[in-house]
């Protein structure tokens, strides 16, 4: 039951993007389409999972004062692993996300969970937390990407909604659209949070 709560809190109540406002850089940068959002979300989830697991394993071995540098090294390693693997085996996705993959290192979501959760909880909870938070992040990015794709290109996951019409409201493909969509999704999530609370 407790694990379930840890797992689900990342979806709405503590949604990393729309409620905790963590990891906004990738959330705004890569979400030009639902697919990009999904890819970035899953990549981050993987890093989160890895770093949370390792951090919670070695949390008692690490002296307090070198905690942060160690976490960063661990996170950076996982990010590099993702980057290399993706470039090798998913070159297309890598091309559209390429610039933002290294930025996962400084995504405060990953660091934040490592510091705030994994370094205080056991492995099981940490993994569940990483999965919940990562999926919440993925959900948020996919939603934002989907919204922008629907309005900006009249398509979702690359499937045209109106045959023959490809040019949507350009502003949603551009950076301002990311901010606008973000703002209204934050409103929506705060509303949902209030409603479910």
């Amino acid at each position, binding site marked *: 039951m407790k694990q379930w709560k840890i797992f689900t809190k990342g979806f709405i109540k503590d949604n990393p993007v729309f409620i905790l406002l963590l990891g906004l850089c990738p959330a705004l940068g890569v979400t030009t389409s639902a697919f990009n959002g999904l890819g970035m979300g899953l990549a981050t989830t993987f890093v989160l999972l890895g770093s949370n697991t390792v951090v919670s394993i070695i949390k008692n071995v690490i002296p307090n*004062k*070198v905690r942060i*540098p160690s976490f960063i*090294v661990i996170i950076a390693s996982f990010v590099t692993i993702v980057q290399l693997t993706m470039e090798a085996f998913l070159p297309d996705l890598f091309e559209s996300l390429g610039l933002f993959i290294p930025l996962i290192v400084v995504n405060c979501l990953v660091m934040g969970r490592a510091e705030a959760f994994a370094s205080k909880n056991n492995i099981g909870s940490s993994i569940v937390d990483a999965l919940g938070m990562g999926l919440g992040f993925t959900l948020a990015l996919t939603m934002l990407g989907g919204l922008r794709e629907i309005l900006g290109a009249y398509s979702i996951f690359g499937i045209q909604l109106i045959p023959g019409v490809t040019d949507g409201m350009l502003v949603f493909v551009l950076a301002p659209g990311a901010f606008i969509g973000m703002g209204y999704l934050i409103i929506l999530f705060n509303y949902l949070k209030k409603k479910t609370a």
Partner: protein
Amino acid sequence: MNEITLISVISLGSLGTIAAIILYMVAQKFKVIEDPRIDIVADKLPGANCGGCGLAGCRALAEEIVKKESLEGMSCPPGGNEVMGEIAKVLGLEAKEQDPTIAVVRCSGSRENAPPKVKYEGDMTCAFAHNLFAGEGGCPKGCLSYGDCVASCDFDAMYMDHKTGLPVIKDNCVSCGACVKACPRSIIEIRKRGKKDRRIFVSCINVEKGGVARKNCQVACIGCGKCVKECKFDAITLENNLAYIDFNKCTLCRKCPPVCPTNAIHELNFPPRRQRPETKAEPAEA
């Protein structure tokens, strides 16, 4: 182990080592001595920063507690004894059980009891109306009913009863005292919660002479002194035409409410009386 592995392990490893050495030196140089217990205590506090303890916020209270190393005279109204007990446990101190308190509204000047004599227009705040005039009902101490107290409540423990025009305090009041400060007429008072939430108090603060007070409000305390005579515990004092029940002396015996000719004494959360004697509405002396 090939070359790349070797180079990366050596370079990154030595980088880590150097970083650790620098960190250690920096940590030695800039050691900050802050009592770690402050953090622990602050963690325990509710974090509402309501100011009910009389200090500038929860952190300030935590610092004060740790500095003084005692809980003497400290209280956290929202957290109550539970929180203070926890803090005491953490610090190894002894917490004095404090009687739980709650805010009460000492005015019954509803629209029915104190019918409006003029109409007010303008900024709907008590703060301004209080400066402008005595209030629609004419009682210079009565509730203005524009809800400054409700606006000041951070705990959602108050609401305005739109029928009577009086604020009502709910049971989740933490007695932080914000409403007491917000009321320009000092109608609200922090009182002891009482056993089973039972309370008896004079619901009026008008100090005018009986006749004058009564003219504006049917349920004003007219200072007749009947309750003072009735009370066997010296809990009731009469000053400036106004009776006041000391909540530390009151034993909740329920003797005084029936004798009040204007029903100014209120009892809360008591079971209904079996046969309530008719209250004689005696004409008050001018």
